[in-house]
């Protein structure tokens, strides 16, 4: 299936999503958060067999998180980047008590990405088997990648409060 057909089919299959091609020739999909799993399953059935990345952006002024799923295809590997048309799927989640359904059932490699986003942005992934800490050693009141996490205050409060070792008396 080529790119044009795919865009048309996506528009037909799913009712309230926006699909368009961006200036780099990639397909950009804006959808609702309930639709993630069905759209990803549909795309997987159409040759997009690799979930390259799950990323997150904190839009603090709009009081929203944006989750981005990037899909590529190994089947069309002989084609150029533009021809292939990698897919961006973007969804918005509200900042207060953010919760999304996990996509591990569709792409198994989403597990560490979702754990990382849970740890650094505090988004809860419903159905994730183990949302345990991945990178961080300490517990933070606000997840540290959120825009309202005050790094300078944290450094003042924590790192600078640790005392210097006293010089030994001779």
């Amino acid at each position: 299936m080529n790119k044009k057909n795919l865009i048309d089919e996506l528009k037909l299959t799913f009712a309230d999503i926006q699909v368009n091609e961006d200036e780099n020739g990639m397909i950009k999909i804006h959808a609702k958060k309930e639709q993630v799993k069905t759209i990803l399953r549909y795309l997987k059935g159409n040759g997009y067999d690799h979930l390259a990345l799950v990323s997150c952006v904190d839009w603090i002024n709009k009081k929203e998180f944006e989750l981005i799923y990037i899909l590529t295809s190994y089947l069309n590997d002989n084609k150029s980047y533009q021809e292939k048309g990698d897919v961006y799927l973007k969804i918005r989640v509200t900042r207060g008590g953010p919760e999304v359904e996990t996509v591990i059932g569709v792409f198994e490699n989403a597990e560490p990405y979702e754990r990382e986003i849970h740890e650094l942005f505090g988004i809860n992934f419903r159905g994730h088997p183990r949302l345990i800490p991945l990178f961080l050693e300490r517990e933070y009141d606000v997840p540290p990648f959120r825009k309202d996490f005050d790094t300078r205050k944290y450094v003042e409060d924590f790192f600078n409060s640790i005392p210097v070792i006293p010089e030994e008396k001779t």
Partner: protein
Amino acid sequence: MDRKVIRKWLKDPEKMGNKYSLWAVYFCTGCGIIEVPPVITSRWDAERFGVIPVASPRQANLFLITGYVSLKTLRAIIRTYEQMQEPKYTVGFGSCPINGGMYWDSYNTIKKLDKYIPIDGWIAGCMPRPEAIFVAVTHLWTLIDKGMANAYKKYRKQYKYYRKNQEMALGKLEWPPLYPIN
């Protein structure tokens, strides 16, 4: 060999032996480790100065901390340092162990390494050139000669303060204290 040197060897063979065979732990912390492979291979050849990288901390007595130290790395650094045999010398390499460097306002990078383990000397710069390692090594020779490279003795004496700081940063440590805390 110079006659002066012979006298030094006879006077204090242990010190001279320590001085000219600094075995460095091959421990990679942050980006500074990129300077170490050219240092130990043919271009700069650290073996001229008696510096050899060694995989095990139990055979090493020089610890180069090359680059920024995150909290997770700090745990490994403390464990590695405590496993090394005395006399042991530590050198902080690059700006980040000194005061955080470009990570001065990071949530997860520790700022002053000498609050957690003792440091004999620092190499400033981001990145320091490989030659800076040799400057540091020759400097360390002078310090050993004068009996001033005493960081490991300070660690033994002030251990309760170090351990307290380490526990403040990392929470409860899963290994017992190296020296008695009273």
